């Protein structure tokens, strides 16, 4: 700042001692909070880096596509990988349509009354149920009551209900972002409510629905407790290299459960294999997450209104 030629106006523009003290406090506060953020977020990089480094020797193509051997102490994780894909796929197929329609109901049809409030409360409660309680529910409802036994179907149904609230909320918010004036314009042109939703509202909110959906779907890959008791199995003898390994009524191996068992139940597993399994699971989840985030940023740049 240039000091003007006379003294008095200069006093207005330079910081007095009180202001300087305030600014110092502010900078200190910024540093403290920034430091807290660094402490929280730095482990993310440090841990991932450490895991990858320790896992490196075991991260080979044979590891990804091979079968477990010697009681999990050697070989690969192919059946577990495929099992996880099965679970993610089936639960997505079961849960996404219901979630989207429920979101449509809440945003387009529901009136502002006590019933709607109860529905919203139910959605929030579903989201808050701990995963082990979902496991108990899955066992009680599908394995026992519906007599499906432990299988992919039971596990998928359990995970589907677990991810349902996330899809509902995602759809609701995406639909809400579409301006109301578009709907009114369509109604005045003689379009029915569903026609308007189908031709105007949904197409313009698809990207907002898809992104959270990808994020939530890949979270199911990391779930252990619900699948542990409803469909996952320690070991399953499979032919090498096959894709369609499982039939829906069978049990399957799952990557999350596999990591749990080899790190806690099986002695003598080489360290690199443990780290490598963790890294593969992490990579699976983080890749989908990053993809979804990139998709969201791309969509934001392509606004239509």
């Amino acid at each position, binding site marked *: 700042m240039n000091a003007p030629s006379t003294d008095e106006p200069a006093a207005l523009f330079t910081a007095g001692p009180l202001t300087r003290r305030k600014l110092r406090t502010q900078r200190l506060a910024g540093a403290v909070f920034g430091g807290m953020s660094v402490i929280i977020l730095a482990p993310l990089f440090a841990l991932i880096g450490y895991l990858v480094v320790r896992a490196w020797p075991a991260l080979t193509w044979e590891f990804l596509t091979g079968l477990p051997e010697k009681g999990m102490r050697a070989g690969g994780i192919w059946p577990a990988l495929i099992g996880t894909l099965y679970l993610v796929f089936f639960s997505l197929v079961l849960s996404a349509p219901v979630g989207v329609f429920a979101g449509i109901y809440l945003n387009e049809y529901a009136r502002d009354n006590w019933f709607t409030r109860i529905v919203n409360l139910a959605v*929030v409660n579903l989201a808050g149920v701990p995963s082990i309680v979902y496991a108990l529910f899955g066992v009680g409802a599908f394995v026992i009551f519906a007599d499906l036994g432990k299988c992919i179907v039971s596990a998928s149904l359990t995970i589907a209900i677990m991810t349902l609230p996330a899809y509902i909320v995602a759809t609701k918010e995406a639909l809400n972002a579409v301006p109301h004036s578009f709907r009114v314009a369509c109604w005045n042109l003689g379009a029915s409510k569903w026609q308007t939703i189908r031709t105007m509202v949904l197409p313009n909110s698809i990207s907002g629905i898809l992104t959270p959906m990808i994020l939530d779907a890949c979270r199911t890959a990391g779930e252990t407790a619900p699948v542990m008791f409803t469909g996952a199995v320690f070991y399953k003898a499979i032919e090498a290299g096959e894709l369609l390994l499982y039939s829906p009524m069978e049990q399957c191996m799952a990557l999350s459960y596999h990591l749990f068992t080899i790190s806690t139940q099986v002695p003598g597993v080489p360290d690199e294999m443990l780290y490598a399994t963790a890294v593969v699971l992490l990579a699976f989840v983080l890749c989908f997450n990053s993809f979804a985030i990139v998709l969201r940023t791309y969509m934001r740049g392509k606004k239509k209104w």
Partner: protein
Amino acid sequence: MSNTQDESPKGSTENAAPPGHQVGSVGRICRALSERTVTALIFLCGVSAIIFVFSIFYFVFREGYPFIRDSLDLKGFFLSEEWYPTSETNKRYGILALLAGSASVTLVATLVAGPFGLGCAIFISQFCDGKFRETLKILVELLAAIPSVVWGFIGLAVMNPLIIRFAEVPIGLCVLNAGVIVGLMCVPITVSIAEDAIRAVPDTYLEAAEAMGATRWQTIHRVILPAAKSGLLAAVLLGVARAVGETMAVLMCTGHTINIPFDGRLPFLHVFESVRTLTATIAAELGEVPRLDPLPDGNYPVEARHWQVLFVLGIVLFAITFLINLIADLIVKGIRKKA
């Protein structure tokens, strides 16, 4: 004139329109029927959430009910630390130690996630903008994406040796280990809700403070934090609920020992003790325990109680997290009413 919206087109009330502009009656009837079907389907999906909440409660209760009916001794259940469901001669089902385990891990987790989560939220919303803020928010999202079993693995493989080396204790699987891991897991939810609460403070407050010459820090601690305090509390509470419900990470990192980490001495020494939480107990024992059918006279054999009591633990857990979520929700609604 009525307020009904009836779609069946049996009216003779339309004027004849030029061809190509209106489909014949058949098409209109089909469209009306499919509109009705779709609307019904949408409504059904809408209420599905209610159905599922009740189902969860019903099926868990169904499996655990015989225990409640036949062998539940409330005082012994909640106040005894003797959990010996597999003892041959003297089966006892006291969950005090389990509750203490859950509480201690949750406490440490909250001490990690609370301050750091709030600090991070304040930093992101007040001291950053543009691309830097977006990047930080993405990093927080990625932190949330790490699966709990991987966190458990990190506790086993990374924190365990660290604690053994630096605290010179024989076992690194303890309250501190699980607490820090679970705390890191809860940070994203605390940050995101706290950020929402901070952003909800009306711009007019900020503008008024700025107009009076307040610096950013003064605005934060005199205007924003007091105005957002309910939302910040809710953020911490939701983190707590998450911590209570966490299963895999605590299963792998607590050492899984029945133990109450407190006996009157200085509290922080106890963080190196191993404990067992409610969630881990269910997860560890559900796979081992057989489910037995009732005997011809309708009663269950004694061996069946272990299976049932695990479901009762589930109900207790459900109740605790439901309560915490409810309180947090009421707090948030309380702010909305004031706004």
